């Protein structure tokens, strides 16, 4: 026992004397909440420009609400720093020469790629994203639409204190309600890049400029600097379509919706379309609020050619008519159902057309599905190599089953005099 005691003492002395290798106090960390990767505006195209948004503890404490509205509209949520380098790791090292505290990237839950960089290909940074222990597979990836990642850091978070939280909440909580974006985390992105027969998409982040109200107390401050009469907000708009590791184009709102219908990731949203008034036969606008949607992709080989069948099954509630005095009759609901299905089909067609004809990029994963269901065919035709060539010509049949079940809290709308 005494001997054990001596050993314990010796052991603890060794540990204590050895030092504390990875120890760092919280206040000595530069906590980066977002990581941006860009192509440098000038200079060597092989270089990367890495920018970080470092949260300042004190400012996050003060509360975002007060900060956003009080005068200086271009206030950012933290401190933006950037560095160039031959590789991402190199750029980060260079970046830390201008950061007075130890850089801490574990909290950068959002990774933003500049559009330039995305179009130029992300192959050179993928390895960093996989290998680095700071980057989690949960991290969200976004492409900055028509700007650099560095610029997006000037976005003011309005409802939270932290930039990454704002983007994270925007994309995971609020965006699905509008159904025109699709959250993609690093894991999904990597799988899309590595799996055969599927291309990657990333959500687009747009900087939206909002004029600042000129309240009396900050009027003078604003007039001094005219450039500051806008504040920058974040907005998610559409998707960036990749082919291989290169971004090839963008889907707009409608096409994004179509894409989401096909992959069955459409969770909620509204659709507005025209139906004919049952009595007057005049077109009336109806809005349906989608409540549930599933999609099933089936593949089939006919005449030695693959055919893709997409079955979409959806339900919705009636949101509004643009005209009162429409009775809710079975016939009317049928009309609405038809209009709903037609509308979905249109959106799907839009997305399919764009991807097949314009981008030639199979973001829907039809190829992967085909491979799963018809492995023999896949191997025979060496589709591993050829799929991208075949994809634009492939036949896609879309079948939509749409049901509008409920009509809100009234049946017939009130009759206007």
């Amino acid at each position, binding site marked *: 026992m005494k001997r054990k005691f*001596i050993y314990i003492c010796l052991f603890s002395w060794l*540990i204590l004397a050895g030092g504390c290798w990875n120890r760092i106090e919280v206040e000595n960390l530069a906590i980066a909440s977002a990581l941006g990767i860009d192509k440098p505006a000038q200079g060597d195209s092989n270089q990367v420009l890495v920018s970080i948004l470092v949260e300042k*503890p004190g400012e996050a404490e003060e509360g975002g609400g007060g900060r956003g509205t009080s005068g200086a509209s271009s206030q950012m949520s933290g401190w933006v720093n950037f560095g160039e380098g031959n590789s991402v790791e190199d750029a980060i090292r260079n970046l830390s020469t201008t950061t007075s505290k130890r850089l801490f990237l574990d909290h950068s839950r959002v990774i933003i790629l500049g559009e330039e960089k995305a179009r130029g290909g992300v192959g050179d940074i993928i390895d960093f994203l996989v290998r680095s222990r700071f980057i989690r597979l949960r991290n969200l990836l976004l492409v900055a639409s028509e700007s650099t990642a560095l610029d997006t850091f000037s976005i003011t978070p309005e409802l939270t204190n932290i930039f990454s939280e704002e983007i994270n909440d925007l994309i995971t909580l609020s965006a699905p309600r509008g159904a025109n974006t699709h959250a993609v985390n690093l894991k999904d992105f990597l799988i899309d890049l590595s799996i055969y027969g599927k291309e990657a998409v990333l959500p687009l982040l747009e900087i939206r400029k909002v004029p600042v109200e000129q309240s009396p107390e900050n009027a003078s401050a604003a007039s001094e600097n005219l450039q500051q009469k806008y504040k920058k907000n974040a907005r998610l708009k559409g998707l960036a379509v990749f082919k291989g590791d290169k971004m090839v184009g963008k889907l707009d709102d409608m096409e994004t919706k179509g894409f989401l219908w096909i992959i069955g990731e459409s969770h909620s949203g509204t659709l507005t379309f025209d139906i004919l008034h049952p009595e007057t036969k005049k077109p009336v606008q109806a809005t349906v609020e989608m409540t549930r949607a599933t999609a099933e992709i089936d593949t089939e080989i006919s005449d030695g050619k693959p055919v893709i069948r997409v079955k979409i099954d959806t339900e919705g509630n009636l949101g509004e008519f643009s005209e009162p005095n429409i009775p809710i009759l079975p016939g009317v609901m049928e009309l609405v159902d038809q209009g709903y299905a037609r509308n979905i089909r249109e959106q799907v067609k839009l997305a399919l057309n764009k991807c097949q004809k314009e981008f030639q990029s199979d973001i829907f994963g039809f190829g992967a599905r085909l491979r799963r269901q018809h492995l023999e065919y896949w191997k025979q035709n060496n589709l591993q190599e050829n799929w991208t060539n075949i994809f634009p010509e492939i036949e896609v049949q879309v079948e939509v089953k749409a049901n509008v079940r409920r009509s809100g809290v009234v049946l017939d709308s009130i009759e206007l005099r």
Partner: protein
Amino acid sequence: MVFNKLKEKFKGLWADKKTPPPNQEEKKLLSRSLGKNEKYFRDTFNRCSDVIFRKFEVSVPDPVPVLMVYLDGLSSFIVGESVVRSLMNRYLKEKRRGDEPLAEHARDHLISVPEIKPEKDLGKLVDFVLSGDIILIMDGEPEGLVISSRGWEARSVSEPEAEPLVRGPRDGFTENIRTNTSLIRRRLKTSRLKLESLEIGSITKTAVIITYIDGIVNEKLVAEVRERLARIKTDSILESGYLEQFIEDNPWSLFSQVDVTERPDKVCGNLLEGRVAVLVDNTPFALIVPVLFLQFLQTPEDYYMRPFQASFLRALRLVTLNIALLLPSFYIAITTFHQEMLPTSLLLSIAQARSGVPFPALVEALLMEMAFEIVREAGIRLPSPMGQAVSIVASLVVGQAAVSAGLVSPAMLIVVALTAMASFSLPSSHATEAIRLLRFPIMFLAATLGLFGVMAGLLVILIHLCSLRSFGVPYLSPIAPLTLRDWKDVPVRAPWWAMFTRPRLIGYKEPQRQEFFQMPRPPKRRERKP
């Protein structure tokens, strides 16, 4: 190594200095001459001002000088008075046969005291005097009389302060061992409750009672307790704590392997599970062996409450045990090594709070823990109204000032306060002692190796706990080794009607506690109809 060498070196020393055992004096018998006897006692009790010698004459029928020796304060005054009165009553016309010894006559006819016995040995007579009996020596008699009259002043039975309960009996042990045995006997009205008496300590001659229920207890356990107690050769036992340290299995362990209580109901409950209790005179604290680690997370009240509440409280205590041991270390490990574990906003506010603090987290934590221990100690040592005032001053003024002066961060204050509350919420101060001490090494490990260090520390503790035994019973049972049957009373507390059997590992003879299937049910319909 070094210690062993030292021991070798000093072995000779011990042997040389060994004093002869004090009980080695040859037996001295009572002399027939009262004068000689009196001289002996006067010599023995030389300069003992509390010994009273009362000499008087009894005349049955001829006057005989009698000496009464007793201790002032320790012996009951009333008994002494009645003895003197009955012996000096000249009007008593007692018939005494000529051949009947006077002592016998006095015992059988004159003295109206329940317990009285003859004794020849002078040494023992002295002992009896010292333990509060009255001795009576008559001239010309070979035997003295020992009149049991131990009636010293004692604290009355009151609520145990260290182990208060909301629901449960309010009586606690006192310093008087007889009162204590009576408290146990009152609850266990069976002749199977055995109380074996011993005396330990050559000077203190402390009465020690081993108590158990015959037929339930494992005989080997009793024999082991007996043997360990018999091994003790010391001159003094002032409190059961002395005994505890003599009979522990592993004296170098931080963890107590003997349970201590001042609640008779707890002792009885443990006896009924087949344990052995050791009562010690002059202390209200009884020892219970063997003890399991998880027992320290139980209170007698668990058994009086409804099972759900009791089970919840047991789970809660497991949580608080972990908080008390680990929270500061976790805080240090996370803020200095694993910052990624915290949500960003929390990390930022901790960074903000710590931004002015000059010390690393470890030093900060150590400072606050030390401050807390000081406050705690000060609060205990001071009289209770003052103690509260001190704790308020310490917590409010010092804590607040330390935070506003930027010496510690508010987060650390919360952590330390939570730890303190958690350690107070553990029912046994015995268990918290080890936890309190172990907190510090784990904090060091956390500051050097992060959570890996914490885990390494925990594993060392686990190895130690697993190798520990309390009177042969593995300390961590019934978790390790696993005895699922005993789990009805360890992580949860099953309803009483479901606890048919006693815990298994303690080693019992009579496994069944009660009849099976006594779950209360609503009366059958036909019974309900009158």
